[in-house]
């Protein structure tokens, strides 16, 4: 395993997809909890990185920061060259909707909707009402994740692996340059987990979508292009696993 150089080549010239400089997050009032302590991280377009670390190390907080779900207490964050740490609520929502897809450990589909509707949901929220192009795009994605025949199934009628694949399709429907996956295989059996990981990898290779995958699974992390290890709210190591 080799340490990653900060001068690693970018697929988009010199401008990183995401750049974190000294990002700090402190929770609490009187009793302060330092979740992140000056994180510096650069992510280029098309990268496929694993974010690892023990429980409570701050990796989920870091993922929330990257996903614009939370704001840093201090530090700078740039996404696609734009300072996003101080955006207002509406701009944050718009940037998140168009720029970042999410895959959660417990897949978290909306149970009241079908697989197709779950995939369409981000588009629906953006455009306000459904149209044929939207349905077609969601259908294509379900086909890509191998669930074209389950499009009209209620989300609750799908198996765990199938639900996670629907969640992947949902994360991709806005064609985001970055997908954040929090333990995407953590709740699946090894076969389904492998299936989902291969799916993420193939999407990364075919579409050039960057992935940040939070995982406790060391073997899974080793299959990524880069492993960022977080300990006590700091980047402990940033390495490229051996091929």
């Amino acid at each position, binding site marked *: 395993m080799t340490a990653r150089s900060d001068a690693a080549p970018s697929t988009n010239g010199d401008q990183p997809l995401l750049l974190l400089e000294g990002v700090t997050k402190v929770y609490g009032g009187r009793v302060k909890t330092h979740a992140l302590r000056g994180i510096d991280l650069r992510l280029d377009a098309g990268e496929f990185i694993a974010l690892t670390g023990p429980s409570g190390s701050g990796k*989920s907080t870091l993922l*929330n920061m990257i*996903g614009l*779900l*939370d704001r840093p207490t201090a530090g700078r964050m740039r996404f696609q060259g734009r300072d996003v740490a101080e955006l207002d*609520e*509406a701009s944050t*929502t*718009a940037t*998140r*909707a*168009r720029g970042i897809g*999410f895959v*959660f*450990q*417990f897949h*978290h589909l*909306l*149970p*009241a*909707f079908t697989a197709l509707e779950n995939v369409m*949901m*981000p588009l*629906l*929220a*953006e*455009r*306000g*009402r*459904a149209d044929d192009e939207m349905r077609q795009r969601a259908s294509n994605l379900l086909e890509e994740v191998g669930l074209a025949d389950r499009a009209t199934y209620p989300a609750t009628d799908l198996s765990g692996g199938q639900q996670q694949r629907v969640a992947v399709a*949902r994360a991709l429907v*806005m064609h985001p340059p970055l997908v954040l996956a929090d333990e995407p295989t953590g709740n699946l059996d090894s076969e389904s987990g492998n299936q989902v990981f291969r799916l993420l990898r193939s999407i990364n290779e075919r579409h050039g979508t960057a992935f940040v995958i939070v995982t406790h699974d060391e073997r899974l992390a080793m299959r990524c292009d880069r492993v960022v290890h977080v300990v006590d709210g700091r980047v402990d190591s940033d390495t490229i696993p051996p091929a």
Partner: protein
Amino acid sequence: MPFELFVALRYLREGRTQTLLILAGIGVGVGVIVFLSALIGGLQQSLVTRTLGTQAQIVVQPREEVPRMLHEDDGVIREARVERPAQRVRSITQWQRARAEIDRQPGVVATSPMVSGAAIAVRGGGANAVVVQGIEPESYLRIVPLDSFIVDGGLELDGRKAIIGVGLAHDLGLSVGDRVRLRLGTSGDTRSVRAGEPARERASTEATSAAYTVSGIFDVGNADLNERWVFTSLRVAQALFGLEGGASTIEVKVAEIYEAETMAREIGARTGLVAESWMATNEQLLTGLRSQSASSVMIQVFVILAVALGISSVLAVSVVQKSREIGILRATGTSTRQVLRIFLAQGAILGLIGSAVGIGLGIALGLGFQGVATNPDGSPSFPVTLDSALYLRSAAIAVGVGIAAALIPARRAARMDPADAMRSI
């Protein structure tokens, strides 16, 4: 379908039991409002119709005669205490002009001149005190539907014909075609006779004790009026009371009955005459109606409050239940405003569907109640007024209350921090 409505409908469908229970609650609430409004509205309308069915909404008459103080030539009062004169049947001065003036008043639907005064109806050994009302049938019918009260004979008032009430007919043993004598008081003519007009006096005296043919018998649903009212033509009454060409009152019908008092004041101011509305002459009834309306409004307010609390609590529970989903929606690009609108839409949908259920229930209750309690003639004892304005008002209240009740839970949902929601996942 808009995104927010789409999601709101799905959420309501997903929590089917909860949704059905709150819809039942709203339905019962709106049903009570519709039923109560219809019942009280019907009762009030019935009372007002019965009251106004036999009388004009505004009666215009001359000012009362007041005693004049006697003055010396130099303006000094000679006798301050003057006996108050008895009121007599008098004509409105230039009543045609006054009537035209009243007709020009916006909101006046119809006017009719009348000569009205006390008389005695005599047949054989029987005599009853009556009120003779001389009318112009064509204009008077636009104010009081006298023809609809006729139970025998017809509304024929040409020549010396009169129509009488069933009570008077019973008391004097009169039927259609019989003759009845009307005279003014026991000692003859009580009208003022102008000096130097002996021929006119004789003619008038004759007229004050003439016989009339009963052409019709009416029943206005009021025993007192049925015994006392006698209708003749205006011309006959003018002759009877010595008011040739005159009119003692002008009867007025207005478009909006509850505006009658205001209009009466305006008519009084414009014409210089005394204008009395039905609201002034039936003050007790009006007070009763107002009290009834106030109690109805109070009940409705509490029902609305209960409905609002029901909707609000159900949606508050829903926000807690759906906090994870709200987090997912937020993470996948749904804005805070959209989340707010999703929950407001749920309140509006609950209000709308609940009001439809409630309106149906209210109609069923109203019609059922009306069918159960009937008078001997088959008419409902408790008339119920069901109209589209009531339905629209109830639906608007329910939707408004639904949205207002959803506001607090909706704001709570919208303010939910997506990171917190994600942490709870």
